[in-house]
C-alpha cells in the first residue's frame, strides 16, 4: 500500500519548496507549480490570488514564522 498519494499539484509543490525561509510568517497562494500571491493578511492574499487564477482556486497556506509554536490544542 502506498501512502502519501498526491492530493494536488499545488500540495506537491508546497511540500517540495526547499527554501521556505523567505516565506516565514507569510501567506502564500499556489496555483499549479507557482506562488501567485504572497502577503501578511489572508484576505488581501486571497483577493490578489483570485484575480490571477482565472476562475480556478489556488491552495492557500501560511508558513509559520520563526518562533511560532509547533503544538496547538484548540
Amino acid at each position: 500500500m502506498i501512502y502519501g498519494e498526491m492530493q494536488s499539484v499545488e500540495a506537491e509543490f508546497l511540500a517540495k519548496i526547499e527554501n521556505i525561509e523567505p516565506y516565514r510568517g507569510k501567506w502564500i497562494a499556489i496555483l499549479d507549480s507557482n506562488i501567485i500571491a504572497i502577503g501578511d493578511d489572508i484576505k488581501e492574499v486571497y483577493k490578489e490570488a483570485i484575480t490571477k487564477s482565472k476562475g480556478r482556486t489556488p491552495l492557500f497556506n501560511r508558513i509559520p514564522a520563526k518562533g511560532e509554536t509547533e503544538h496547538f490544542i484548540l
Partner: protein
Amino acid sequence: MGFRDRKSEKMHFRYKAERFRNDEGKEITVKKPRVEVCIRKDSGHPDPEKNPEYRAYFTVDSGADLTFLPLQIAEIIGLELNENKKSSVMTISGKSFAYEAEVYMEIMYRAKRVRIGFVPVLVTEGDASQEYIERLLVVGRVGFFDKFIVIFNEAEQNFELRKFQLQDKVKRF
C-alpha cells in the same frame, strides 16, 4: 468525483509535514493529520463573484464535534452569519461563542475532488490572528466522520478514509 468512483472509496493520506523554526533557529518538522479541503457557500460551481471558494489544509480532528472556521475565512467565501444563530463553544481556553452555519465541502485526492457535501460549521465570533487562522481550520466529526471510517496510524504517520458502507453499519448491531 463522488463516492461512485471506487478509487475514492478508500483514500490514504500521509500526515502533512510542517516546518517550524524555533527561537534558537533550529528547524523542527511536525507531521499532522491534515487534508486538503475546498469549501464554498453553495454546491454549484466555484465562482469568484457569486460562490467564492477557499482551499487549504484542515486538521482532521476526531476530538472536535464540529468543523471550525475562523471568521475571516467565512467572510472570504461569503457565508451569511446570523446573530440569532450562535452556539456556546467550550475549548481548552474556555467558553466562547460561535456562529452556526453550513458549507459545501470537497476534499482533494489524487488531484481530483471528492464530494463530501454540506457540513455544519462553527465560525469564530471575531477575527482570529493571522498565525492562528490555519490552526483553527478543523474538520470535526459531524458531517465528515459519519461518512467515513477514519483510521489514524500515528506510529506510521498516516491516515485512511474509507467510505462508510451499509454492511459496516449492520456489523455494529
